[in-house]
């Protein structure tokens, strides 16, 4: 049985160039692009008004933006190699709290992820290293993991902050235990670049996807691959779990969004409103009394919001 999602709103030309990354909080959606500003949109009203613009956040453009699930912290990574940490003020405004530079070499940090409470930030480097930083304790680097040196294209941290997972150019997928500081699993890879990894909300499953056009599901506890979701015909650039862990969302280079049922291991909805690259897709946090919703953004410079069509 398939599911129905309807476009509820599109923020046209949200940025003047490609939107490379979006992130959500319970009430907002943050978008980052090839331009220097980060934009903050309200998801509380149906017309998604612009609430704040973080001007000049990243002069060379911004390729990753992430939020902590508590909605109080955000981090963004720019093409110049800098990472900025943002927090929400008393007046409900995002303010820059500080910066992270990996050593003194600009441009080393690529993908980033925040833990649920925003205390830990994990990042990848071009040469395959994974670092974890404690943002409360002076933004100190607390973990350094080595892999085989292949570009770390994607990263995620489990909600409890215990695990970090990374996806690499050579197809490698790794899970690290942040408590022990050791690599837990080197997972049977996808051979081709892994452009997105995501832990399920309970932290028991890891989804990984990329140029192989399949989404691999792994069991985190045993380090085994448990499923392959096939159906995309182009590179998969991002995946995201719904709040309940029942559904997985994926966006691809050819502009397609798919919703997958984890129980049935099948695609239950496909959207192809654009043929332009979708760089980023994200579920909106579940809102009591409202049906599930997600957002998609990319090369067409706009942000589209979808909501599940309910029967009644």
């Amino acid at each position, binding site marked *: 049985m398939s599911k129905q999602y309807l476009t509820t709103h599109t923020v046209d030309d949200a940025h003047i160039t490609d939107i*490379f990354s979006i992130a959500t909080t319970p009430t907002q959606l943050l978008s980052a692009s*090839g331009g220097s500003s980060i934009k903050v949109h309200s998801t509380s009203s149906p017309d998604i008004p612009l609430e704040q613009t973080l001007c000049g956040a990243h002069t*060379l453009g911004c390729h990753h933006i992430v939020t902590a699930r508590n909605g109080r912290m955000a981090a963004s990574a720019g093409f110049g190699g800098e990472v900025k940490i943002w927090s929400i003020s008393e007046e409900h405004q995002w303010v820059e709290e500080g910066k992270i530079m990996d050593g003194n070499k600009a*441009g080393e940090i690529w993908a980033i992820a925040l833990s649920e409470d925003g205390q830990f930030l994990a990042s990848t480097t071009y040469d395959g290293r994974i670092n974890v930083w404690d943002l409360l304790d002076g933004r100190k680097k607390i973990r350094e993991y080595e892999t085989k040196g292949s570009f770390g294209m994607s990263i995620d941290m489990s909600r409890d902050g215990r695990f970090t997972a990374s996806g690499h150019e050579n197809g490698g997928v790794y899970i690290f235990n942040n408590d022990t500081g050791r690599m837990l699993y080197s997972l049977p890879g996808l051979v081709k670049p892994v452009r997105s990894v995501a832990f399920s909300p309970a932290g028991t499953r890891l989804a990984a996807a990329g*140029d192989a056009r399949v989404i691999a599901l792994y069991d985190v506890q045993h380090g085994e691959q448990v499923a392959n979701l096939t159906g995309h015909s182009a590179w998969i650039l991002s995946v995201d779990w719904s709040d309940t862990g029942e559904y997985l969302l994926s966006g691809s280079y050819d502009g397609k969004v798919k919703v997958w049922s984890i129980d049935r291991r099948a695609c239950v909805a496909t959207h192809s409103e654009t043929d332009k690259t979708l760089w980023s897709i994200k579920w909106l946090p579940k809102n009591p009394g409202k049906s599930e919703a997600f957002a998609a953004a990319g090369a067409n410079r706009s942000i589209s919001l979808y909501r599940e069509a309910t029967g009644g």
Partner: protein
Amino acid sequence: MDIDLLSDVVSESEMALDDHGNMLPNLPQSRLTHEQAYQAVDSSPDSFPRSDSTRPFNIGRQNQAGAVITKIEDIFESITECMLEGKKELTIKLKSRSGHNNKYGDFDDDDADGSGVKRLSTRAITFPTKSPQEAWRFTALLRILELSHEALVTGVVTTKRDIYYRDPELFVKQTVVDRYVDDIAFTLGFERDALNVVAAAKSLVAGAFSIIRTDQSIMDYSIENDGALIPNTKEIRDLNLPDVRWIIVIEKEATFRTLVTNQYWQDSLVGKGIIITAKGYPDVQTRQFLHLLWTRFPRIPIYALVDFDPDGLGIMSTYKHGSMALAHESINLAVPSIQWLGVRSSDFLTDGPDAQGLLKLTARDRRISRKMLEKEMFGEEAQETDWRRELQVMLMTNVKAEIQILGNGESLGTWLDGKLLNGT
């Protein structure tokens, strides 16, 4: 092979030299660059074989360039030291190979490693000096080092002729430049090409045009089946190109050859045209020629066909805006109307993301891309927002592609027809 630079700064001249031609072997970085250079050549499993060896920078060359830059900077440094400390006298021992005198500029036949079979002669140039002749020699040497350093740092290949024209009053005649360039390369233990200096323009041109030279002779390029060397603009009295509808500048010689073999400039659906290649970064002569075409015939569109990688954009940028180093000459060399024909991400990624010929970016590619993004023209409200976007996409996807990805022979012609008909 030694350049006995520091005999007066460092007390023991013996310690200043080692077997590898390092002038300052005690400096850690000169050693380091050397080792890196070899490493990079040996361990390049992920550097794909290049079909086009004329590309200015492959990995090995890049590291060699680094080594040459280091050596030149070492010389500058010791000169500065010498001046700061006053009194000190600096002697640069410049080596040249005997038998060279009657055959300057023809380096390629020679044994590059200078294995000692040939008899060597050494000239000492001292600074400071009271002799005007000696001071001139030193200035000329320094100027060539500087221009060569500039060529290396900017990645723009220059010719001996270019160097001469940069400062004709100083050099007086071409042979002075020729001799110093070769001697410097020899003394440093590299081939002349490693200084990013070539003997003469290697750029090729083919197309439906002819020129009348200053001596009244006529050169008809439309009957040159394989293309011909690009003419020197100083020798052009008049240009004759009534049928030309387009001009394409191509990064790769291989692509140029393909198109010339297929007579694309004659048979294109959009009419006749001119094809030019500078085999990588353009030299001054190529840019002068293109600039001349543009100023004389501003209505003929000029396109660039370059690789989808940072060097491709760098090459196009050099044609369009000029090189940073030659900023003072840009007005005579730039071709601001140049349009980007390809390769862009949309040329290969939408049709089939698994297209053969996609390469991943190297660490150097990523570093250069970032440096380019920092340039003013790549700013978000500057003129080249298109380039900015494609550089960012390159970094996002970590993918680059050579012109060859568009296909060879007929498929390339079809692709070009499509692009030229629909505009860019």
